[in-house]
């Protein structure tokens, strides 16, 4: 998604696309490709749709009804705040403005989108479009973390933390991988955000769950989802929106985008079926919460791989995602007793790690039916590539964990991270927002 990646990729699978771009350039003196622009306008809408209402509903259905609005509010406020922050300084910290970028952080030439004009072009689409497409990624990543501290974190603390987190975790890692940073230079394959989105969010979730501590009553008291119809609705929206997320990361309307959409879909289906099977075997019944969780696992896991693998590999990736995330969810909750309220780490974090590693294998063009579209720049073998992928996973994991921990402690010095016990009993909707979710007679 970052220029170097694309430049490299275009020497591979995207070759067929490039002439079109240069053709358009010749024709009208501007480098934008209208067809790619048409698709990316749509893809941007789809990724926004993932957060509002998609993820918001997915999460909100899982909490108790006294906290339903607080979750919706957190996702919505993050959508707004992260957008403005991205405009002000986030974008430039991730992508900068100069053609050559440093290893660790973008330059500050694009503060307040200073260099985003109506006729600026990036990767063959209007820069404004590239900037807002990326903005939707910067929205959903902090929103994913909401699931970890749901039902107990104060709204103000959540806002402060997220602002700092976007700038000090998301923007740098995004730069490393997509903005011309060191991981990109190593040829890390991360098409749509295995490291940048899912590992950062998942690890931050784990740290947040540990720092804030469990919800009052966990794990004895019933904290059953208050509205699974809402969760399933959100799940469907996530699946549809994810097409924009992954196929949009091709930044083109071409075979690469189409293949990304196909493998994304197959992995989602396989992840769902795998989780369903695990439940059916272990608990005797398949559940709708199970199947949609498997879907998220399948989608998160294919994300880094969606530009590099073929359909048969997608099936394998999806099946392993559904199975491994299932067991990790059980372990975190029932063995380690960590109250990551909506299981963000075992699904997104583990899925992100898994996918980032598996792409190192299935990108190989020499696996017969399971062949992929080729290694990252500079890598020649599965061994090479897996090494780079492992470095990407470990560095993102550790960096995120440390900085997230520091930020939470810091915010905790300024305001209370949690509401009081009594407020938790009463529910965040009334306590934090003076509203009630439902008044149905």
């Amino acid at each position, binding site marked *: 998604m970052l220029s170097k990646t694309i430049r490299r990729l275009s020497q591979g699978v995207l070759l067929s696309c490039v002439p079109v771009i240069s053709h358009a350039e010749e024709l009208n003196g501007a480098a934008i490709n209208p067809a790619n622009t048409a698709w990316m306008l749509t893809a941007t809408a789809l990724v926004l749709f993932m957060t509002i209402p998609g993820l918001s509903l997915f999460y909100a259905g899982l909490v108790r009804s006294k906290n339903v609005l607080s979750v919706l509010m957190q996702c919505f406020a993050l959508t707004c705040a992260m957008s403005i922050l991205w405009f002000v300084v986030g974008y430039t910290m991730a992508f900068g403005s100069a053609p050559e970028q440093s290893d660790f952080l973008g330059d500050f030439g694009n503060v307040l989108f200073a260099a985003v004009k109506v006729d600026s072009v990036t990767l063959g689409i209007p820069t404004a479009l590239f900037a807002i497409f990326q903005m939707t990624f910067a929205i959903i990543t902090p929103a994913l973390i909401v699931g970890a501290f749901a039902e107990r974190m104060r709204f103000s603390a959540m806002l402060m933390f997220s602002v700092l987190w976007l700038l000090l975790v998301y923007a740098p890692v995004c730069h490393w991988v997509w903005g011309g940073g060191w991981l990109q230079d190593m040829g890390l394959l991360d098409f749509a955000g295995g490291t940048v989105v899912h590992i950062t969010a998942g690890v931050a979730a784990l740290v947040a769950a540990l720092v804030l501590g469990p919800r009052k009553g966990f*794990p004895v008291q*019933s*904290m*059953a*989802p208050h509205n699974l119809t809402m969760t399933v609705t959100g799940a469907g929206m996530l699946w549809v929106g994810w097409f924009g997320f992954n196929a949009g990361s091709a930044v083109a309307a071409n075979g690469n985008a189409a293949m990304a959409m196909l493998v994304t879909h197959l992995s989602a289906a396989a992840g769902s079926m795998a989780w369903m099977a695990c439940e059916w075997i272990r*608990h005797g*019944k398949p*559940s709708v*919460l*199970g199947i949609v*969780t498997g879907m998220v696992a399948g989608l998160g896991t294919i994300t880094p791989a969606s530009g590099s693998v073929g359909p048969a590999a997608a099936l394998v990736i999806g099946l392993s995602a559904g199975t491994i995330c299932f067991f990790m*969810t*059980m372990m975190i*909750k*029932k063995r380690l007793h960590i109250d990551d309220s909506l*299981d963000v780490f075992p699904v997104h974090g583990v899925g992100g790690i898994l996918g980032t590693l598996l792409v190192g294998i299935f990108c190989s063009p020499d696996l017969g039916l399971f062949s992929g579209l080729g290694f990252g720049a500079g890598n020649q073998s599965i061994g090479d590539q897996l090494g780079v992928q492992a470095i990407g996973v470990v560095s993102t994991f550790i960096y995120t964990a440390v900085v997230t921990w520091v930020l939470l402690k810091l915010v905790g010095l300024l305001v209370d991270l949690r509401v009081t016990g009594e407020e938790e009993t009463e529910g965040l909707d009334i306590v934090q927002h003076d509203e009630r979710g439902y008044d149905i007679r």
Partner: protein
Amino acid sequence: MRMITAIIKPFKLDDVREALTDVGINGMTVEEVKGFGRQKGHTELYRGAEYVIDFVPKLKLQLAVRTDQVDDAISAITRAANTGKIGDGKIFVTDLEQVIRVRTGEQGTDAL
């Protein structure tokens, strides 16, 4: 007068209401309640978190009747609500001192 309070299985409402109409009882008030007793509830499972739901959905009927209607009412309910399975419910009878119809201010059995 007596107040009869009956706890029944939810899907038995229509049968019970008909049975009561047959014995001439045409007024009642119904509430959705949760019952706890010998009948086992069910287990719900959400991503590995297991919650045993002991409380079973029931309906509670309240009917104010003339004292001479009590036995008819009880047998009507007992017959109509019976499935022979645990959890069919209970009937409670208490004394009722006074009844007033809001619309007219009528009192006692006239108000029923």
